[in-house]
């Protein structure tokens, strides 16, 4: 998967980011940290402005990691017919 470098850098920086930037969105490209932004929309706009269609990371600085749960999808029941 792409974003490996970016995710590794984010994990390394997370303890420091949590001190002063909790709730904001970090923008990372390769091994470069570009800053934090008030919204994911602003971080994404800055990423596109600098890197166009290249891969970059926009991640929320948060104690708790986001987990996606959708029971019906994960159990294969979205279009089951009994």
């Amino acid at each position, binding site marked *: *998967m*792409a*974003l490996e470098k970016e*995710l590794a850098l984010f994990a390394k920086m997370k303890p420091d980011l949590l001190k002063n930037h909790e709730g904001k969105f970090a923008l990372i490209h390769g091994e470069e940290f570009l800053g934090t932004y008030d*919204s*994911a*929309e602003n971080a*994404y*706009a800055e*990423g*596109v*402005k600098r890197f*166009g*269609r*290249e*891969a*970059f*990371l*926009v*991640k929320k600085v948060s104690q708790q*990691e*986001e*987990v*996606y*749960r*959708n*029971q*019906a*999808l*994960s*159990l*294969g029941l*979205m*279009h089951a*017919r009994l």
Partner: protein
Amino acid sequence: MPVFNFFHWSEKLGRTLNETGPLVSVEIAIPTALKQHLSEKGIAIPPAVSGFALVDTGAFATAVDESVFVSLGVSHIDEITTDTAHGPATSKVFPANVTFPGMNVTDMPMERVVGSKLKWKTRDEKEIIMLMGRDLLQYFLLVYNGPSSDVTLCY
């Protein structure tokens, strides 16, 4: 608050709400920032992908079939853990603009949509490309009328 009714019926199958679940037509487009970037560079803007969204009160976040983002040429911006029947997995997160033509909702920005393998066709040939989760439903009033096979959404 405008009210929109969606009667679920087909000539071949009759009432379809019970079988298909609540569906609304949807168009997924590239995010505004990318659209502006491509325009400035003189690059053609990929057309929006059309299909249907299944209203899914069981999903906390909206998910879109990953093939849609491949068509649009939109890269993912994050990865998150997904709970599946086989244990935790990783899913990509994408930005998108969402339009619901039947409800006059145009180019709604969504910065964090979960990419998933969810595309399928109903027996009345409606291709589902999105699961409309509670991150979107928090802005809607929803009435599911099973006996009359219709769904009402107010935005």
